[in-house]
């Protein structure tokens, strides 16, 4: 009986603790909006809140966020000085993305920045009700995602930036650098909406260049090795999209492709710095900065939906010289002149 009682007490205390934290959490936000600044900490809490919600921690998405913050700072909005910038990642779980959005709305954020599709969609459901402007970043197909009416106009309260991979330019680069290539292998995660639309576009464009696209879908990182092994004998090169899963597994893809002496093309400059042969692609830092400037416009009083959605179609060619030498690829002079060369 004693033990029973103790368990009961322990249970109740767990409940009480959670309730207390919840209540204190709420009152502190309530207090922060009503009481005038008395101490430095309250002062910071009184600053207008800019909420950044991101679906997962991932290099490209993190770079976007850095760009956003850099643009805000350049315009004079500094975290802890005249604004409060709060960053939350959903750790890959959509249910967390919803809670994050609700948290920002409850804290009366002046603007919410959402990086990647599911976070933007989760935020939209909440900002729509609360009338808080939403700026999305790195959403490849904002129309299909329900964030935009068309490619330049967001739905009410929404604007943002889209990253469109210049697939046509990339295919052109492949014909110039490695003219013998006929079959291009593309690895993609079947769960990523971005990869889905990029792959469809690559397949549609390939016949113009006389290419055949061979694609292999994977669902987690453990399947990448097998997928590369089965793909390599059937293709002349590999082309990586902005697929999060495949980009994370890039070292593996590269080592296998190098062993088979086949080039790997990328979709952003960091993939080339890490050893891919070349890319025509997106500069995520730049994309983040463009997004950040939109936030600045909103902070200055502009309506989100009146700011045009910008689709960044990167045209920067990046070539890795070391990889080119290894694969005995000669770089035509005209391309070399305009490209960024890395080693």
């Amino acid at each position: 009986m004693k033990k029973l009682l103790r368990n009961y007490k322990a249970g109740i205390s767990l409940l009480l603790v959670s309730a207390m934290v919840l209540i204190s959490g709420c009152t502190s936000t309530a207090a922060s909006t009503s009481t005038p600044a008395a101490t430095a900490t309250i002062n910071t809490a009184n600053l207008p809140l800019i909420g950044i919600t991101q679906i997962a921690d991932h290099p490209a998405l993190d770079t976007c966020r850095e760009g956003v913050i850099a643009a805000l700072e350049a315009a004079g909005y500094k975290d802890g000085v005249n604004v409060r910038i709060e960053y939350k990642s959903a750790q890959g779980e959509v249910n967390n993305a919803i809670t994050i959005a609700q948290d920002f709305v409850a804290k009366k954020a002046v603007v919410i920045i959402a990086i990647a599709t599911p976070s933007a969609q989760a935020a939209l459901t909440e900002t729509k009700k609360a009338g808080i402007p939403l700026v999305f970043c790195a959403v490849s197909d904002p129309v299909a995602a329900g964030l935009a009416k068309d490619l330049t106009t967001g739905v009410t309260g929404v604007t943002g930036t889209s990253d469109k991979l210049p697939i046509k330019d990339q295919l052109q680069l492949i014909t110039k650098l490695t003219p013998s290539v006929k079959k291009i292998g593309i690895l993609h995660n079947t769960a990523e909406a971005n990869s889905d639309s990029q792959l469809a576009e690559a397949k549609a464009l390939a016949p113009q260049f006389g290419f055949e696209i061979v694609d292999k879908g994977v669902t987690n990182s453990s399947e990448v090795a097998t997928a590369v092994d089965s793909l390599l004998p059937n293709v002349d090169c590999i082309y990586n999209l902005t697929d999060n899963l495949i980009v994370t597994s890039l070292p593996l893809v590269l080592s296998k492709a190098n062993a088979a002496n086949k080039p790997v093309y990328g979709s952003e400059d960091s993939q080339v710095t890490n050893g891919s042969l070349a890319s025509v692609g997106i500069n995520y830092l730049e994309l983040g900065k463009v997004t950040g400037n939109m936030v600045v416009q909103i902070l200055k009083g502009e309506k989100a939906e009146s700011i045009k959605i910008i689709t960044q179609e990167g045209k920067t060619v990046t070539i890795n010289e070391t990889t080119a030498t290894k694969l005995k690829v000669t770089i035509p002079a005209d391309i070399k002149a305009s490209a960024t060369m890395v080693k």
Partner: protein
Amino acid sequence: MDVLISGIITQGFIYGIMSMGVIVTYLVLDFPDMTVDGSFPLGAAVAASLLLSGVNPWLCCIAAFFAGTLAGTVTGILHVKLHIKNLLSGIITMTALYSINLHLTGKPNLFLGNAVTIFTFENGLFAGIPSSIATLIVAFLIAMVIKFALDWFMKTKKGFLVRTVGDNPQLVASLGQNIGAVKIIALAIANGFAALAGAVICQYQQFFDISMGLGTIVMGLVAVIIGKTVFGRIRLIQLSTIAILGTIIYRATIAIALNIGFESIDLKLITAVVFVIALVLSSSEIKESIVRLFKVKNNA
């Protein structure tokens, strides 16, 4: 009401439907059912694709429920008829469901747009009430319907058998009843609940994403154990009530962690810590069943 608090409670009720399934399989039947990570998005996929083709949102929920029962039945057959270990049979179905869900929707992310959902209140019973409150009421009502249906079921002869299979399978066998059939029924119901929760959540968040099942069973298990720890000693409390209240506390914990400024990279760590605290505080019977769970894992 504060958006965050009404959000926590709403999500608590919706995910609570899933937890009610987990409490049947895990606490009653002693079956850690991984199928849920697949049947939850299955329900969302069924509902999303039907909604977009103009089907009545309530019918979508019912269809999702039945799709879920089908998934649970498959796990049950794998376990009972093909003698595959409980944890593995759930993992197998969950894995297969990933492809099936993608086939159902055609792509990894679907936006429900302006499709009429169960949370569309423009003109109807709830016109004039703030939408967050109306949403909360609808979520509460669905959870209550499921709660009372489950309470009723557990009192029927079949429900009694489900309980007995968990406690004393020999007794069921000695009564001349088929243990396997009872397990399959329980799994079907539990996954029906998970799929229904998925269908409701996807209408609540207005989109389907293939990754939305991630972490569902963990949430269900933590919620059920928290619920059992905190409310389990209250006399005559229904298992269904424990599941719903546990889920609300779990969602509140996550929201608090986010609200008071924990680094979001610590979220999973916080989940793990809450899990451990609940387990340590909980009664010895749960301790035993968790030990059993890990034994199964190690053998598998």
